[in-house]
């Protein structure tokens, strides 16, 4: 949906990070693990390196 909407609204190259769904039943720790798994990708898309 993010990609379709970005393209339609004129931001075809908008950087997006994909997070697998659903995570409604995941524990807080599991969600944190998922979030941490995205840090490098987010940093890469933002053009910076992740800080440990």
């Amino acid at each position, binding site marked *: *949906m993010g990609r*379709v*909407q970005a393209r*339609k*609204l*004129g931001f075809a190259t908008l950087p997006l990070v994909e997070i697998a769904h659903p995570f409604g039943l995941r524990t807080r720790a599991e969600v944190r693990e998922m979030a941490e798994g995205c840090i490098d990708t987010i940093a890469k898309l933002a053009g910076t390196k992740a800080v440990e």
Partner: protein
Amino acid sequence: MNSNATASKVLPAVLLDAPDDLDEINRLYRAKRWSDGLPIVPPTPARVERMLEGADGRDRNDIVALLAPAFNAATVERIAINAVMAGCDASLVPPLLAAVEAIAVPEFNLQALQATTNSVAVWIVVNGPAAAALEFNGTFNCLGEGAWANATLGRALRLVLRNVGGALPGDLDRATHGQPGKYTFCCAENEAANPWQPLHVERNLAREQSAVTVIGAEGTMNMNSHSKDADELLRVFAETIVHPPSNEYTHGGEPWIILGPEHAEILDRGGYSKADVKQALWEATKMHGRRMAKRDFARAVQSREAELGDIGPDTLLPIARRAGDIGLIVAGGPGTHSVYVPCFGNSRAVTRTFVAVDASGRAS
């Protein structure tokens, strides 16, 4: 045009080299996901041209709205194509164009309605003289099958929502269950049986105008009560409406009531105006925050703090921000029934006028 988005280039409809066989065409539409799951009427150029005669002279390339979540342009022609597929008469094009315009108004919140996991469908209520002229049903079985106008207008709007708005189940439409109203959900108000103002007059239109109102409806709950006492009737309605896992309590919504003519008459005889009915229901449906699940209550706190201030477990949460936000129409035939229509919460009904056209496509 009605949207916050900017129209990109609109491509005209493309002619498809289709087999000259209805079954084959329907197999193609099924494979392409261009149908709602029911057989369609093939939108041949001749049929689309006839449908466009109902557009009262509007240019086929006019953009009526950009529809979320795909933000494709709903042109008059694209809407007409979907109207053909749904089986509409050309006379239904004006209310269909009005409905498409209405769903794109920001307060309707189409993006959320189209993409949510909720079961929400778009319910169309038709008011004014065109309702009878176009044979919309607002009496017996008005939410059921049998009336061509109800069935095909609601279906056409759903096809537009899918084929133009891009809400395909499992893709951009993330509904967990959906509901049967996503095939079609349309009725007229039974204005003759309404002891008060009909919906469009309540919404500042003249009685002689015709209008569609679009509503983000989550379903229907029948309320069968043989009570002849107005206060008692309102009490049992209120007890039906109160349910903790409700979007209305989470966000301060816009629940709707369809009063059957008999119940409307009982309330009127009991001395209740339409505003009185809304006020009484608003008061009687306040619910303690503690009745909600903890996570749902936390969402309500987050969503309604600005409206209600500090919210605690003992706070009585109103179902809507104001009594006037409760929607009410009179519809149906004789019988001891009314209907509660729970709604999406973050959506407001929108009304748009239309002018009926006669068989030749002229305004009438």
